[in-house]
């Protein structure tokens, strides 16, 4: 009885304060991650263009550290806008709630904040999302793989799926969506192993895949894992589908080394997140649920034709 339910306390108090709304806190996956760095570059660039400032909070992939950073940033009263790439979407929910209650405009960037991976709708009241829905991402990867098979009229078409990290529910939701779509399309999955997010893990996974299924036609995986995979499958006529749109990935698709990439303009999306946050903080009307794939429509299914003239927005 002595407990106080923070969710019902006073209700949202998100009325914009009259002072300058120009300070953004960016909570990224990790500073030592070029994807995050590019997102932040977009945030910072947009902030500058509107006379605002931006600050990077680096949890170095530690979910609990990120929770503490969000909490402390609320306490410090130094920010009007939060842009959050959640390392663990469920863990940060209470901290994000207190940020909303403190009147901070919160933009959820890239990964869903909450526990559902199949929707772009805000899962914490009062937040704005600009995310890539994992299940949609999985389905899109499957779609690209199907097109890869079709491009060479391969039937049966042998597909290997390099999963992200087995322990992460987000990755599992993506995997399930992709595998489901592939099966529905009648594709033959010959290997499904953990490929991770580094070249080295992709390399190991691919070495093992090739032992088991030397005739594999299409390999799907994170762009880093695919880079590692390509290095061990030198000379084999394999069609690669990469998740992620780095400069290197885009180049590989344009040169025809890889079949396609799930492309997102990362830096642009960082800027867009900052824009949404600043707009909200300055009292403008903002749509709460936003899909990343809508920002440059059609480009996410990044085949050679689609990516012509595009350059990636980060290195890896």
């Amino acid at each position, binding site marked *: 009885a002595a407990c*106080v339910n923070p969710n019902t306390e006073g209700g949202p108090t998100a009325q914009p304060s009259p002072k300058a709304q120009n300070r953004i806190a960016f909570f990224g996956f990790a500073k030592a991650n070029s994807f995050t760095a590019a997102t932040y570059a977009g945030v910072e660039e947009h902030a500058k263009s509107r006379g605002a400032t931006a600050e990077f909070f680096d949890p170095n992939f530690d979910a609990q550290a990120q929770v*503490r*950073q969000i909490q*402390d940033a609320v306490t410090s009263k130094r920010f009007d806008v939060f842009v959050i790439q959640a390392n*663990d979407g469920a863990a940060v*929910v*209470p901290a994000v709630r207190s940020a909303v209650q403190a009147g901070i405009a919160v933009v959820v960037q890239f990964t869903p904040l909450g*526990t559902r991976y199949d929707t772009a709708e805000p899962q914490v009241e009062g937040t704005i999302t600009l995310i890539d829905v994992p299940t949609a991402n999985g389905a899109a990867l499957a779609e690209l793989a199907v097109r890869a098979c079709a491009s060479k009229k391969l039937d049966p078409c042998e597909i290997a799926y390099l999963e992200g*990290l087995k322990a992460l*529910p987000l990755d599992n939701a993506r995997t399930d969506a992709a595998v489901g779509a592939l099966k529905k399309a009648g594709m033959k999955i010959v290997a499904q192993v953990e490929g991770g997010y580094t070249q080295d893990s992709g390399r190991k996974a691919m070495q093992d895949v090739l032992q088991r299924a030397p005739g594999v036609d299409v390999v799907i995986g994170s762009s880093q894992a695919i880079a590692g995979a390509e290095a061990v499958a030198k000379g084999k006529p394999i069609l690669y589908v990469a998740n992620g749109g780095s400069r290197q990935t885009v180049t590989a698709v344009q040169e025809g080394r890889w079949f396609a990439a799930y492309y997102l303009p990362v830096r642009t999306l960082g800027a867009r997140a900052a824009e949404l946050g600043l707009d909200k903080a300055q009292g403008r009307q903002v749509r709460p649920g936003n899909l990343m794939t809508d920002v440059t429509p059609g480009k996410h299914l990044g085949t050679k034709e689609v990516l012509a003239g595009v350059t990636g927005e980060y290195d890896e």
Partner: protein
Amino acid sequence: MRVRDSGILLALFVLVVALSLATQTFLTQGNLVNLLDQAVIVGLLTCGITLCMICGVFDLSASAVLAVSAVVGVLAARGGGVALGFGAAVLTGALLGALNGAAVVLLRVHSFIVTLALSIVYRGLALVITAGAIVYPDPARLTEFQSLSWPTALGGVTVPSLLLLAVSAVTSLVLWRTTLGRRVYAVGGNPEAARLSGIRVGPVRIVVFTISGVCAALAGLVLAARGGSAQASMGTLLELSAIAAAVIGGTSILGGEGAIWRGMIGVLILTLIGNGFNLLGWDTTYRPIVEGLLILAAVGTDYALRHREE
């Protein structure tokens, strides 16, 4: 406790004074309440892990036990109510902890590798139970489930913070005042001498692992309550932070020496360093460098003071 034993307190004191002077927000009630709340997860693990270290064993499975317990707790709450869920989680923690202990005692291999291997097994177990997805309590019971993470009427101090205070008080009492505590110190300090004094070394080890499992389960419940869900990857590697906290406080990794309060000071120092950075708004590029050096300075001070005369 003699003055020279308290170098680590001095380090903490210096940090607190520095932060109070450097920011207006540090010494606010809200921030102090937060700080305590932030210390809870690692703090709970540190209580159990300190006991283990004093007893001469490592528990590298604490965060995996945390995950399994939280998952079981959430699923049980769905089936039979929140109280049952909490109970099931604690029981799971105790069981897995006891299993750790039994494996260490029976295999007679160093606890470091036994608990490392079992932590892989436990994470796998959590993965199988959840089928790799997130699990939630019944929506109707969510609020009740989450109440474990709420602030209380005591100046907003949260339930988890009170839980940590209670657990650290109980484990301290066990160490200082009970015969079990004496056995723990003896087994850690010299297992052969303990055995020849009629102490059952194996059961004592199983008990400390069990306590560590319960601490991990409590931490898992707090995390699950905060997030309103549980998943297999929860709290990964937190035992490293807990071991670091214990060692920073001055508990020996060689066993036989140490105290819960030391671990709590270690947790506070780690939490404060992070909190300070977040409040100060310094350029975060240099943060890890400063953080690492501060930790070194803290343990260095403690050591130098304790061994001044030798």
